[in-house]
Each structure stands twice: as C-alpha cells, then as structure tokens.
C-alpha cells in the first residue's frame, strides 16, 4: 500500500552566524512513513524539528538532502497540493479580510467554482463554530478563533491528507475537545491526519502511530502500544477492607503500600510480581478489589528519557554538515 506521507533521510541545515556562517542541523536524516487513514502524532519538545519537518513537507523550506513524498508524489508537487490541507503553527491571515472572504480567496486558488466556494466556506465555518463571525474582519479575531479559521482553511478543499502544526495551541479546554473530535471525525472519513504537538496527552488520546523527534533526530516511532509495551513499570492495585495488617503482609513483595483513606489502600507492585496471586491472597484476607491498572510509562516519561539519552549529542554532529 502506498504511504500517505514518506520521508527518507530528510535533512535540513541552516547557515547561522553573521560573519562566519556555520551550518546548524535542524533536522537530521528523518525517515518516517505514515499509512493512509492514520492519525499520526509527530511529537517532540519545542525546537526539536517538528515545524521544520512540516515546512519541508509543505516546501516552505527546501531540504539539504533526503526526500519527502506525499501521496506518492514529491512534496511541493502542485497536483498534490490540491489534495492536502495545512494549518501552520500560530496561523496569521490577512487583517483586512473577513473569515468568509479569506475562505473565498483560498477557494479561488483551488480553482473551485463560486457555488462550491460558498458551500464549502459556509460548511467549514459552521463546523468550526465561527459561522456567526463570518463577516467580522480577521483583525478582530482572538487567537483561538484564528486557530479555528486556520482549521477551516486547511479543510476547505476536502483534503486527503491534513497537516496540523500544533493544532491545540492557543485553544481553551473546550476548543481542544472540539479539535480532538474534529480529528477523529476526519479519521472516520478515511483521511490521514499528521499533527505535531508537544502536548503528549493529545497524542495519547488520538493517535494510532507516533514518531518522536528530539534535537532534530528521530527518537522513536511506532504505535502507542509498541512504544509503551516495553515500558510497563508495574501494577497498581486499589483494595478496600484489607485492614492495617496489609503492610506487614506484603512487606518485601510490594514496591509501595499507600493508605488512601480509611481501609482503602493503593498497592504498587513491580512488573515481575504476579498481581493475580497477591490479589487472591488479599481477597482471602477479606479485602475487596476496587481497581487494578498496569503502570505504563506515559509518553511524557518516554519523552523525558529520550531527551536525556540523546542529550546534547544530536546537534554537534549536524554542525559538521556541509563542510
């Protein structure tokens, strides 16, 4: 099956410095593949190279080396641009236009007939909850509203692949929920969504696959399950009615026993412990199970660990590039 998005050894160096220019590697041999219909989370801390990657895919900047393909065509192909949508980070549009006029302008650039432009612009403004402000100049829009306009223009042409650079940024909790629902809706329509974020919970609630970049390098890639399966750190049992003897009973076998309230306790077990046998033992002693959860590393943990592993190692190598 043809990938919706593919990059091979994609690299970007910038020349920095005023007098003595030296190369600075913003992205280092990035190879990723996104299957059609996926919600792909592109994660990393600020300055990791997420926006650089998106700009390379949009051909707003040009690669030093490597390749980028969208829907089997080179990124930047004019035909492909008819089939994609893009929301930049902190989008800015023309102050002098209204939301409706902006979408009409972009619709013209797609070569859409007037009736289609009106229909799609109306539908998008409705869907994003800014229909009432359609005739308001964009200079009067709040940051959150501009983000919604940005999403409306990204979806105007009913794209097959949608690129969203930090789509939740600037949104209140309600707005974040709306965007999450929108992304899931797009997935249900069979579209591919590639979104960058430094907010890992967004990825955890949305993504089928993720890639993580740290300091310009790919640090991890896979399904959330694949990334987290290696990182189950133990089990947490919440039990009630176990009595005060629980601590002495589990001494040496539980990592930690914490009294939550009254006779309710949280028992943390190591990954090697057998929660079933401990649970049976506690039940026999009169305790009842409230909940049991595997303790997995969150993306947050993974993120912090990769940053620590990669440390400052990524950039200096890149800084030799081009010499």
């Amino acid at each position, binding site marked *: 099956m043809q990938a919706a998005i593919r990059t091979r050894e994609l690299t970007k160096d910038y020349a920095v410095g005023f007098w003595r220019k030296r190369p600075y590697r913003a992205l280092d041999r990035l190879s990723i593949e996104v299957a059609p219909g996926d919600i792909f989370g592109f994660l990393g801390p600020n300055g990791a190279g997420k926006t650089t990657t998106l700009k390379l895919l949009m*051909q707003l900047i040009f690669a030093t080396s490597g390749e980028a393909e969208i829907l089997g065509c080179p990124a930047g192909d004019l035909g492909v641009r008819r089939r994609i949508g893009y929301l930049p980070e902190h989008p800015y549009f023309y102050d002098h236009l209204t939301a409706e006029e902006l979408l009409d302008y972009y619709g*013209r650039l797609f070569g859409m007939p007037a009736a289609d432009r009106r229909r799609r612009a109306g539908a998008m403004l409705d869907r994003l909850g800014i229909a009432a402000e359609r005739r308001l100049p964009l200079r009067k829009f709040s940051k959150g509203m501009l983000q919604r306009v940005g999403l409306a223009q990204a979806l105007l042409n009913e794209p097959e692949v949608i690129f969203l650079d930090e789509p939740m940024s600037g949104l209140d909790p309600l707005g974040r929920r709306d965007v999450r629902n929108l992304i899931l809706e797009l997935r249900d329509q069979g579209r591919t969504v590639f979104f960058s974020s430094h907010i890992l919970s967004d990825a955890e609630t949305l993504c089928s696959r993720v890639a993580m970049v740290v300091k310009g390098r790919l640090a991890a890639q896979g399904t959330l399950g694949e990334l987290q399966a290696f990182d189950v750190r133990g089990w947490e049992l919440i039990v009630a009615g176990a009595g005060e003897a629980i601590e002495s009973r589990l001494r040496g076998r539980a990592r930690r026993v914490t009294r939550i309230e009254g006779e309710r306790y949280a028992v943390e077990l190591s990954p090697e412990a057998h929660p079933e046998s401990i649970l049976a033992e506690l039940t026999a002693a009169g305790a009842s199970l409230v909940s049991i959860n595997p303790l997995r590393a969150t993306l947050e943990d993974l993120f912090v660990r990769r940053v620590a592993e990669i440390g400052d190692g990524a950039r200096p190598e890149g800084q030799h590039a081009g010499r």
Partner: protein
Amino acid sequence: MPAARSVAVAAFRESVRDKVFYNLLLFAVLLIGASLLIGQLTAGQDVKIIKDLGLSATSLFGLFIAIFVGISLVSKEVDKRSVYPLLAKPVRRTDLIVGKYLGLLITLAVNVAVMAVALYGVLFFLSRGVPANVQQAWDAPALDPALLTAILLIYVELAVVTAVAMFFSSFSSPMLSAIFTLGVYVIGQFTADLNGFDQIVHARGAIALAKACYYVLPDLSRFDVKIAVVHGQAVSAAYVGTSIAYGAIYIAALVLAASAIFSRRDFK
C-alpha cells in the same frame, strides 16, 4: 495563470482596504488649492503651471505607492507568515510574485486614472471663460490630449519602479528595499548622462562603473516628457512606443529575477 489572477485581485483589494487611495484626496486638495492660488498670482501662465504641477504630483504620489506598497505586498506576506497557508495551496511562487505585481499595477492604474481625471477637471474650470484669443496664445490647449501621453509614460515609469521595489523585497528587508529602490529611482533619472561619462572623466575604472550602471540600471528619464507636453512640443508615437517596449522588457527581466529568487527562498 488563474492563481496569479486571484492573487492580483486580492492584492488590489488589500490596497483598497489599506486606504491607499486616500492619497487621491490629498492630490485633489493640492491641485485645487494650487489652482486657486496660482490663478490669483500669475497672468496667463496658470494653465501651464497647473499642468506641470498636476503631472509632477501624479508622478510623485504614484512613486510613493510604487515604492512603499510595492515593497510591503510581498514582505508583509513573509513577515506575518500569511505566506505559509498560501503556498500550501496550488500556487507557484512565481504566481504569487506575478499576481502581487499585477495587483499593484491595477492599484496604480486606478490611482493615475483618477488623478488624470482630476487634472483635466481643474484645467477645464481654469480655462472656462478665458477668451478664445487668449487661449490661442497658449503653447497648448488647456485640455490637451497630449497630457495623456505624459500620464501614460508616468504610469510605465511607475510600473518599472514597482518592479524594482518587488525585486529588492524578494530577498531583502523592507527598509533596505526602500533605500535601494529610492536609490535606483534617483540614479535612474540620470542614467542617460552616465553614457557620456567618458567625455568628462578619464579614469578607466570610473568609466567602466558608469557604463555598467548605464546598462544595468533603468533609464527613467526617457519616461519624463512633462516639459515637452506642457510646452506643446510633439512627442512622437515612435518615441512613446520604444519607451513602453523598453519599460516592458525591463519589467519582465525584474519580475523574472524576483520570482527566481523568491522561488529558492527558505521561509524560516
């Protein structure tokens, strides 16, 4: 190039909404005020002075628009990052440059046309009631159609200056672009003199530099036929034709160069 056409219409709309045409108001006030004042001070020279003033003001006001709007149309898109969503659409970077340029040409055309109408209007009121024998003594009639020739060439000159502004703004900052464009405009008024530089200077380096400037920089003085028109001297159709052709070639070269530079630019 349907995308370029859409960009051109949007650029024109931006000029209108940014109140670029407010300068017309100032132009009208200047022209009417001057005609009232000059009518009182001079005897028989007022029509000539108003023609000269009107044409000079058309040129000057147009120059401000050509330089400042010409620079800001592209650099504003880049600085404010509105170019990001735009270039993700099926729009070539060349379409963007050509579209912006055409948009500004429409703005300038409207501007110059309104100024021409205002100038003819003032001249009409000024000549009204002047006896026929006095009018016959004038170098040229008040409502001389030759004024349109001068205005047409002013427009071509403004189109060249706009192309220069857009060329510089495709790779440098707005401030530097303004300085460079103004520099080219000023030197452009004297380019023809550079060709005869070897008559007054013998240093080879200086002569070579003057020759290089002569061939590279636009000869803007050839678009200035104000004095001839005001004094009723004929400007041949051949001269107008070659001047327009010269301007068109120069513009094509600059727009091509601007879009070539812009097409390779990284938007960091």
